[in-house]
């Protein structure tokens, strides 16, 4: 399912105190792909993604989710179907857990969107298996689990709604290396299952490894929309200007270019970089 953002602007306040957060955003989130949104803190990333499932309504322009159009005038009642199609995983999503058992918490979303108890339970169980939470924990209180397990329960709570698209805001924040790796695997599984994925991330290595398309935000505007192997070809100064890091293999490759090395294509990983170096040394 594609999501089209057309001429989107968003501001708070009125009169003299207007604060423009987003300005004339145009982009298409391609179906079945992973779109990464990057940019420094305060560039408008989080505000932008909250328009994808109508948590915020545009001040101007429109957001088209599948066949539904969301504008500033869309009524509250019409927003439910949009939210059912676009799941949203906030930063530190474990803070939204509330139920007395894991299973009950995961069933909350599907039940709200009209599933009966049996259907909701089936969806919840499927989601819990997908995030790799062992069955022995399903009847536990989510608050008896470790931080990493709670994160999985929260993810399952959104997966269980079986949305067409999913938005993740810094999903790996605070996880240790193993937890991060498992999460990235999950994103790739979702893509393999034809889901549309939107990912906010500060970690450019992840972006390079995962994304099909990268949206760079700066001061509430889109500064670039490109495939990662295009984007990271830009020169260092551009990344400094946009307060972005480079993925480590790319940054190192650029260093080596100053020493006479040449790279045919952007190194996607350490192994890729090593291969390209090997053929150039004697």
């Amino acid at each position, binding site marked *: 399912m594609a999501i089209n953002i057309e001429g989107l602007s968003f501001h708070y306040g009125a009169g003299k105190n207007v604060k423009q957060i987003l300005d004339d955003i145009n982009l298409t989130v391609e179906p079945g792909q992973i779109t990464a949104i990057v940019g420094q803190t305060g560039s408008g990333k989080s505000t932008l993604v909250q328009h994808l499932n109508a948590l915020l309504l545009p001040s101007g322009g429109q957001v088209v989710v599948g066949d539904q159009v969301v504008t500033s005038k869309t009524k509250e009642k019409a927003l439910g179907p949009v939210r059912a199609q676009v799941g949203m995983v906030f930063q530190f999503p474990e803070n939204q857990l509330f139920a007395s058992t894991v299973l009950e918490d995961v069933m909350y979303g599907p039940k709200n969107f009209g599933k009966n108890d049996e259907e909701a339970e089936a969806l919840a169980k499927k989601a819990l298996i997908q995030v790799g939470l062992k069955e022995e924990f399903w009847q536990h209180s989510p608050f008896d689990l470790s*931080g990493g397990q709670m994160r999985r329960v929260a993810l399952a709570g959104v997966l269980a709604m079986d949305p067409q698209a999913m938005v993740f805001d810094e999903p790996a924040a*605070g996880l240790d290396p193993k937890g991060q790796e498992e999460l990235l695997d999950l994103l790739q599984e979702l893509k393999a299952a034809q889901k549309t994925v939107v990912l906010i991330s500060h970690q450019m290595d992840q972006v390079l490894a995962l994304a099909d398309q990268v949206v760079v935000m700066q001061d509430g505007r889109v500064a670039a929309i490109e495939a990662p192997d295009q984007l990271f070809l830009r020169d260092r100064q551009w990344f400094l200007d946009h*307060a972005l890091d480079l993925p480590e293999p790319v940054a190192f490759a650029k260093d*080596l270019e100053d020493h006479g090395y040449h790279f045919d294509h952007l190194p996607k990983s350490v*192994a890729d970089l*090593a291969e390209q170096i090997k053929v150039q*040394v004697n």
Partner: protein
Amino acid sequence: MTNAITINNLTYGYPDQDPLFHDFDLEVQEGQWLSIVGHNGSGKSTLAKLILGLLEANSGTISIFGQQLTVETLAEARAQVGMVFQNPDNQFVGATVADDVAFGLENRQVPSEEMPKMIEAALKQVGMADFADREPHTLSGGQKQRVALASVLALKPKVIILDEATAMLDPAGKSAVLQTLKDLKNQYQDQLTLIVITHDMAEAALADRVVVINDGQLAFDERPQDLFVQGQALKELGLDQPFESQLAQALPKAPNQYLTKQELAAWLSTLKD
């Protein structure tokens, strides 16, 4: 050289669980920069809480500058050891930056008229002097953590423990906090002992010595450069190898020792024909 912290035969476990630490020993010399790394749940944060007396050991001893930690010596120990926690929001006591730095001074009963210059000095050290009147929710995570550092510095501690202090920060915030740490270490040299608990290897690389904790055991205790070359072992402990050592290992004929990125690039430049 004196020991800032000495831990002997420490045993600790949470109620109803297997002991997390069993006969655990660790010495930290004065003026050292030590990193403690381990995956989530390995017990590294628990260790920090034990050192500051927020948790009580089941048996064994912890000494701060030779003074054994007991209920009676707790206040004295805390006067020498400061701590910055993981969540920037949950350690900010004051309603403004200056009030937050003042909190510790108020507890130590520093006279009111002496506080402003002490607060200003502490904020200057972390580069936050211009933010004295700001409220916490108007600051970024990195700025809040620097204020937390200032609050600790104002109390003139000999040891500062940072418990995953950069884990919740974005890259810009993280590097600002790390730069502040480097500046402090440069300024105080041997007068300041730093203990940085982290699972970020780039952060651990700044230390003189790295200790890896796994299931309450000391898995490694080495210089960072000696640790980073052990790829598979780190992976088994749920840790990452820094980029530069990963790359060095993937290259044939790389020197069998740790090279920083600059050193690695310099070495590669000699190979280019």
